[in-house]
């Protein structure tokens, strides 16, 4: 599988480290329901067959996090953007 890094270009997946779901938002640790919210954030995952938005870290290249739109059934990649919005 090749991931199209917006800075480096298409690179083999072995240059990247996988983090997972890019749609999650880290809960507020000061909120009254923080324990439950963090349990869900850390452990509860959907396992979608199809479109998925996910984080990959380009450790072997530009050292930036990339948000990748990947189809989990075909590995077809619909797009990729750098975290933080730059570029």
């Amino acid at each position, binding site marked *: 599988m090749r991931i199209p890094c917006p*800075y*480096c*270009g298409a690179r083999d997946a072995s*240059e990247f480290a996988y983090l997972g779901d890019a749609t999650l938002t880290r809960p507020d640790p000061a909120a009254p329901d923080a324990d439950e919210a963090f349990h869900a954030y850390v452990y509860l995952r959907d396992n979608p067959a199809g479109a998925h938005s996910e984080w990959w870290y380009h450790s072997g*290249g*530009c050292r*930036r996090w990339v948000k990748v739109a990947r189809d989990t059934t075909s590995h077809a990649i619909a797009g990729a953007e*750098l975290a933080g919005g730059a*570029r």
Partner: protein
Amino acid sequence: MTSALDTFPVTQMPADGHYGPAGIHGVSVRVFDPPALALLAARRGGASALTVAAHATLGLALADAPRLARANGLGTIGAGPGRWLVLAEAPEDLTARLAPLAAHAAITEQTDGYVGFELSGVRTRDVLAKGVAVDLDPAAFPPGAAATTNVAHINVTFWREPGEERFVFLVARSYRVAFARFLIASGAEYGIAFAHRG
């Protein structure tokens, strides 16, 4: 079957010399210590201010892309968004020269951190095809194109020099022996001249 590399300990650089069939010279490797090297990393939100300052004070054109540019004895190589390696052509106090950019960038001295490998010769791309997973066809990777990638599990930054089949690799110093062994193991069949110079 034994190879020339079997006679060298894996902790030491292979000796200068010719590896492979006698009379065949497909690739030349020149190992060199960078005269001066630094990393320039734009501060958050400061990439455009850094680009302006680098051009105004040092005459450098910092493209935010994996490319090599040269001006005033310095080569700049894009290593990531807002980050450049700056390689001097001659020994100098590079961090002092870059100091006017300190308001816009973190400047990290790297001269001793890397070793350079310059590859040239008609079979250079045949050697690199055994470890580089980036398309090096001149149409896709013309002179001045650069990349940071893994070669034989070793992280490198490299670029293509102008002219025929000439590439320069910067390799973290502690990986230089492993990278040299990759080059010799991969290049011996084409005849490889290996030398430390400059």
